[in-house]
């Protein structure tokens, strides 16, 4: 089956340090250390949890096991790199996530009666501006965590890692609306990646 695999620059496994030879079959037991428990990839709906610098489409030999948000096999090969995922798209995705956290914080401010602060936060058009404003604002206690999360999300949109921006946006959603809102936020992230990267919805 086809699976997605995120790697560090140079097709390096993020946990194993294994350098993947594009196109060649790799068996978990033979290679120096592809992974302790097999070769890992993921389905499209789990991409936001595993973001790294390079995204590859990989062929996973059967049997393939679903473990949490991973797919595990004993043998796989990299088929092709998804070139649409690059530093620029990662930056745009991080900023999109940061905007979502910003808007949740603005909503929290509004609920707390701080309409002016909410409008000012919504008007911030860059992560840098969100960071600056978050330091300046007089934040009511009930909106404090949401504004902190928006500020952290903005910081991670600037510095990376991109996966952290996605994580913060998901947890800002959870803080605001519970587990259902977090699930919805993660699905929004998947939809963004599928749309922007032109991924088939069901490659894996």
């Amino acid at each position: 089956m086809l699976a997605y695999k995120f790697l560090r620059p140079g097709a390096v496994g993020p946990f194993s340090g294994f350098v993947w030879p594009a196109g060649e079959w790799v068996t978990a037991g033979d290679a120096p250390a592809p992974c302790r428990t097999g070769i890992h990839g993921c389905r499209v709906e789990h991409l936001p949890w595993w973001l790294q610098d390079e995204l590859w489409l990989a062929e996973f030999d059967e049997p393939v096991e679903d473990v949490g948000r991973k797919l595990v096999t004993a043998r796989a090969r990299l088929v092709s790199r998804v070139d649409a995922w690059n530093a620029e798209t990662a930056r745009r995705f991080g900023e999109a996530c940061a905007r979502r956290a910003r808007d949740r914080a603005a909503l929290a401010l509004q609920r707390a009666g701080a309409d002016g602060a909410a409008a000012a936060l919504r008007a911030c058009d860059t992560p840098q501006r969100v960071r600056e404003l978050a330091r300046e604002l007089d934040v009511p206690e009930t909106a404090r965590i949401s504004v902190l999360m928006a500020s952290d999300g903005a910081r991670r949109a600037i510095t990376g890692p991109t996966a952290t921006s996605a994580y913060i946006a998901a947890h800002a959603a959870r803080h605001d609306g519970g587990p259902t809102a977090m699930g919805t936020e993660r699905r929004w992230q998947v939809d963004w990646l599928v749309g922007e990267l032109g991924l088939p919805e069901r490659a894996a």
Partner: protein
Amino acid sequence: MHDHEIICREFVELVTDYLEGALAPETVDLVEQHLVMCDWCRDYLGQLDATVDAVRHLEPEPPPKEMLESLLVAFREQAWEDT
């Protein structure tokens, strides 16, 4: 979709078992998801891994003679009380 994601405090509790390969695959999954996005915990893991690696190469040192004798006395007394 299950929604559990671990936080840094949970990671710290799990990190030793993670390094020893003693976690269930589902928990490894959660730990590695956390490591993807948390550079602080990644640094912590790297430091712990380096420490374990360094200590592994040290020769074990015997305890000082006085400490060894006092421990043996304590063990014998305990064993006597337990009989």
